[in-house]
């Protein structure tokens, strides 16, 4: 995510004429390349050890963006801030910067989410996706039936990094507007994304949407409920939030590893058969 954000920052400041759609896509490609580089060890190590190896990438990148002033154009504070840029060529609609209208921001992100989700859906259904799943389920068996592990693993890293890069770029350019790498793209953010996937459900596209919605909406709901509704003070409700999120993660890991996506599917199933189940 940090790679995506910093790529778009460098592109935005170096080429003021560029529109946001190309900037965001280019940031995605840049992140994909970095992702492939960090994915190379995946050919040798797997499982838990791979997770730790990619964790190293997290720390390395944050350190890099803090250490090298070129990435933040030598600003005194090490922060990057997004200047105003347009939606697309010849349209005069700002999507970044303080003067951007909310509807423009929303539509801009919505287009990306829609197109990318559609692509993801089709990728997983096609031969590439089937190769990934084969490798995920059992890599030796997959190799025997003719899946090239090098290609499958590296494309998986590239495509997921591409998605992550786009999300990082959008978080910085459209949502936050100014970013400090340690605070916005630190380990906390990685954990948040991981929790979204765990709660939403591993291995499903709908699950990531459900998980993201859940993790973003929960604090808002809790704040409305506890602070405005029950009149607790802000600090207490924040502490409650930690307890509730932690409890939910444990609950999902133990009771329903497939997360909200599975719950949703079960509910649909039950409602279809209701009121006369088998």
């Amino acid at each position, binding site marked *: 995510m940090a790679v995506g954000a910093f790529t778009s920052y460098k592109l935005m400041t170096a080429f003021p004429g560029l529109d946001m759609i190309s900037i965001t896509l280019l940031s995605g490609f840049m992140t994909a390349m970095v992702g492939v580089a960090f994915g190379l060890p995946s050919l040798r190590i797997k499982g838990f050890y791979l997770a730790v190896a990619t964790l190293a990438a997290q720390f390395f990148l944050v350190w890099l963006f803090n250490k090298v002033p070129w990435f933040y154009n030598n600003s005194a504070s090490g922060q990057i801030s997004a200047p105003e840029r347009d939606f697309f060529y010849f349209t005069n609609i700002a999507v970044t910067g303080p003067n951007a209208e909310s509807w423009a921001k929303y539509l801009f992100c919505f287009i990306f989410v829609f197109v990318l989700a559609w692509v993801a859906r089709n990728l997983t259904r096609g031969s590439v996706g089937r190769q990934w799943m084969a490798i995920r389920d059992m890599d030796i068996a997959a190799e025997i039936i003719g899946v090239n592990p090098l290609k499958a693993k590296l494309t998986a890293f590239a495509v997921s990094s591409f998605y992550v890069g786009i999300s990082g770029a959008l978080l910085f350019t459209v949502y936050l507007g100014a*970013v*400090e790498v340690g605070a916005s793209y630190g380990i906390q953010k990685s954990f948040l994304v991981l929790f979204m996937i765990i709660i939403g459900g591993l291995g499903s596209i709908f699950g990531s949407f459900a998980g993201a919605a859940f993790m973003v909406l929960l604090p808002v709901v809790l704040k409305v409920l506890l602070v405005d509704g029950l009149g607790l003070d802000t600090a207490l409700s*924040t*502490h409650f939030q930690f307890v509730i999120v932690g409890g939910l993660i444990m609950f999902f890991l133990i009771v329903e590893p497939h997360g909200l996506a599975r719950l949703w599917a079960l509910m649909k199933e039950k409602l279809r058969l209701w009121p006369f189940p088998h």
Partner: protein
Amino acid sequence: MKKLLTLTLGAAVAAGPAMAELVFPSLSYRTGAYAAGGIPFADGYADYFTLLNVRDGGIGGVMTAVPECETAYDTERGVECYESTRGSGALVYQPLSTGITYQLIPRTTADGIPMHTMGYGRTSAANGDVFSHTFNYPANYWDAASVIINILLEENGGSLEGKTIALLYHNSAYGREPIRTLQTLAEQYGFTLSELPVDHPGQEQGNQWLQIRREQPDYVVMWGWGVMNQVAVQEAVNIRYPMENFIGNWWAGAEHDVTSVGADAAGYRSLNMNRLGDMPVFDEIQTLVIDAGLAAGDGTNLGSVLYTRGMYAAFLAAEAAELAQEMNGVAQIDAAMMRDAMESLVITNETMEAAGMPGIGPEFTVTCEDHGGTGMAIMQQWDGEQWVTLTDFIAPDDAVIQPLVLEDSAQYAAEASIEPQCGES
């Protein structure tokens, strides 16, 4: 205990944009690694407005409201807090976080709401020509760096040639702010600057202090906040670093930073931008706010360094609101009037005395070009039990800072394509 706060909060939610009161949102943080500094500041800020409500019936006859929003010193949540409170008729924002300040500078400017970042935030915001809605009087980070060097110069007979100064800083926008000034000053006075970053949240400082022990710098200057301060003071005691050569900025000099070490930390010095000690206003807060059960916190922070600073911030905001009422002749002011008033604010010893806090800060005048105040600060020292004020207000070296401010703000103006606002008026 929280009744009034909840009532006002409820009222603010219920009344919404009806604007029956003057709203001063408090982006506080009472949780997380920085809560130790956030709580007393938020208490002081809220209690002063409560005092105005109880004693004077608000400002100019209009009650004040201080809706609180928890940010946990997290920039994203700070932005969310801003977005959720800006529609409530907010007059001025005080985020008490440099990271959040950077996020809010473009937003507040676009929304026309002034932001007051007292002694933190973006230093070059002192150039009001570029930063129309951001104010950082009475002082800023580069002033602090310069004041520290001025004090050291005085102690060393006017020369720091050949000395080494280590800067121990929080590795964030906040901690990196003084580096540029200190580098310039290092060139000018011939001392060596070594930079030691400490990563968020600041509990891990073993390496940095090992390095300090090895290099034995003549002075250690700290830009710390939250839990980082306590750890640093403890580590300094552990390696037996001479405490009087260890100097914090004004966010690294509160009671809670040193009480955990106590008497061993005696000698530790820090800057402060507000004076300490007994002030008549504390008695009024005690009787009218805390004893009446209206305090924002548990009332134990009254008179502490950061409580006083929060109260000082509230006082400056209230003065500006009063001025805005006078300038426009209406009681119910809006954010634009507030901004204009902040830009023509004059704080004299008489105004401070009238508010029951004589000499709490320096006298200063804000103008369209200069949003930064005088930048003067005092030096205080921990004697093992309490903070003792060592000096009077000391001025920074404007000849060094002003060109840096202009350079940095010009860069921002070019990046964000801002036209200077002061020329035409």
